[in-house]
């Protein structure tokens, strides 16, 4: 990471903070060895760790494990893909990263999920604040159907009390541009979000998540309800977005993981079997189970 790039990034983000104080997260780790919250940066093999889990376990009810004892890093400004057969716990893991399990009934999360050196499961941490720093995109596009395209993108900023029109306008244009949707919708920002095609709706949801400048973006099978064309656009988008935000993506499509990700973690029956650089895991996985899954022995 070049220091100059970092500075530019901070300036760009700083303007928005200065203009309205809306952005809660700044997606940059300083070149000075500290996270934005002032904690020292952790590195593995010289690469900055943005998020990390330690012994993360999710239980449904008393005994059923969603995931068990998962410890893995998420590297800064990279794409980490979570793969594995259905029911292996990859979505459960993803949802544990921004405390979405808080909302479920009878779900218990133990262990730690560490963002910028701070465990988000500490009792004094507010889950609402965490979700503003860690955005999420879901399997099915979920625009708010009664709201316009513009208001959909603004939704997150409005939640933090941003009202100034010029700031909102700017943020909407930037988020939509980042989500590669601006050219298609700039003339009809006032039409309802539900009027877009499935692929556009999904990019709208990505724009909505980006508008609050999250540090990490979680994507739960974001292309599984889309046609191949729309899927390709989202994949290209993910490649561009990793320049500014750390991405964790769940996919059931191994080719997709190979195409978009820098790191791949293989989940099986609630355990994280292995995590490596994507090239490595697809060419020479360490674990036999990974090998078998990737070669199609089971799925």
């Amino acid at each position, binding site marked *: 990471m070049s220091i100059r790039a970092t500075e530019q990034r901070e300036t760009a983000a700083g303007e928005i903070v200065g203009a309205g104080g809306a952005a809660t997260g700044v997606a940059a780790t300083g070149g000075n060895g500290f996270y934005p919250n002032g904690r020292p940066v952790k590195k593995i093999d010289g690469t900055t760790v943005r998020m990390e889990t330690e012994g993360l376990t999710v239980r449904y009810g008393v005994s059923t494990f969603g995931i068990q004892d998962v410890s893995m890093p998420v590297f800064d400004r990279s794409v980490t893909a979570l793969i594995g057969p259905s029911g292996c716990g990859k979505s459960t893991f993803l949802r544990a990263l921004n405390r979405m399990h808080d909302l479920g009934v009878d779900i218990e999360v133990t262990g730690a999920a560490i963002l910028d050196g701070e465990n988000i499961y500490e009792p004094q941490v507010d889950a609402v604040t965490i979700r*503003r720093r860690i955005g999420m995109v879901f399997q099915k596009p979920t625009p708010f159907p009664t709201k316009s395209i513009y208001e959909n993108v603004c939704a997150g900023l409005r939640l*933090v009390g941003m009202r100034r029109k010029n700031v909102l306008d700017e943020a909407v244009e930037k988020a939509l541009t980042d989500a590669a949707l601006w050219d298609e919708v700039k003339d009809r920002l006032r039409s309802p979000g539900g009027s877009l095609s499935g692929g556009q709706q999904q990019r709208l949801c990505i724009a909505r998540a980006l508008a609050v400048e999250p540090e990490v973006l979680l994507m739960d099978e974001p292309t599984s309800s889309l046609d191949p064309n729309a899927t390709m656009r989202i994949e290209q988008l993910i490649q561009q977005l990793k320049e500014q935000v750390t991405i964790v993506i769940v996919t059931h499509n191994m080719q997709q993981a190979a195409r978009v990700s820098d790191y791949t973690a293989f989940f099986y029956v609630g355990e994280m079997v292995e995590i490596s650089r994507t090239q490595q895991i697809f060419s020479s996985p360490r674990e036999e189970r990974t090998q078998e899954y990737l070669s199609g022995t089971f799925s």
Partner: protein
Amino acid sequence: MVETNNLLPARYRGPGDRVFKTVIVLFSSVIILLAIGTALVIYLEARPTFRAFGYWNFLTETTWDPVAAVHGALPFIIGTLLTSFAALALAVVPALGVAIFTTEYAPWWIAQIINYTVDLLAAIPSVVIGLWGIFNFAPMMRERFYTPIYNWAYEDAEWLVPIIGAPSTYNFVTATIILALMIVPYTVALSRDAIGQVPREQREAAWALGATRWEVMRKAVLPYARTGIVAGILLSLARALGETMAVAMLIGNSNRVPFTLFGPAATMPSVIINEFREAVETLHYSSIMAVGFYLFIVTISINLLASYVQQKLSITKGGL
């Protein structure tokens, strides 16, 4: 052989389907014919009144005097509209609160208890609520509230007296409160359903943006559920307009407009139930039928409006 059979269109595959289809079509037609038949009969029976007073004049005439053979429906229309809308105004906010609380905030077991209780409230026969109103609620209200308020107004706020009127035990306000109590379960149940139908993904999308509980309600759930809630409110209104027994027991049944808050009044259903036995004159009888005919029109319009809102404006069907 078997394959060929499967390839044939369904209607060639034996008589079972055809018999079943005939039977259900028959039953459905009977229902439709019954509804149309009822409306037609009521209209025909009401015709002497329409001929004597005219469709519009019957609606705007304020006198209802069977002895003088003058019949006007305005007092009952005013009574029905006032009690229904006032009851709706009283019921909607608490009902929405209960619906939101049980669907979004309460632990499941508390929600269950509340839901069962609300459903139970809906199951109490109207006449039983009326009985309770006559013997407990109405005298208590008169003693504790109406009389002191009237006395105070008489001393200190004379301009209020013509509005509130001399307190009688059975009056407009009592009937309205009971009516509100009776429609609350409907409003709760219907808005609960509407809120329950908001997809999980919509809530999660708002949660994931960092919304608090109330913000999730306000930004994602209520906008999505609004058509269902509005339809539910309209259906509750239709129910209030048509509610008969408890209102007739508690409203005091006075045909004389203007009504006062603490004085007796009447509604369209209450005049029907109170007078149908005494209606020996043709004109009296047909006027009661005419009131029934207009009541039928009003409630059916409200119901149609509710289904229009539910279907045409619903989000899942694409229109906005």
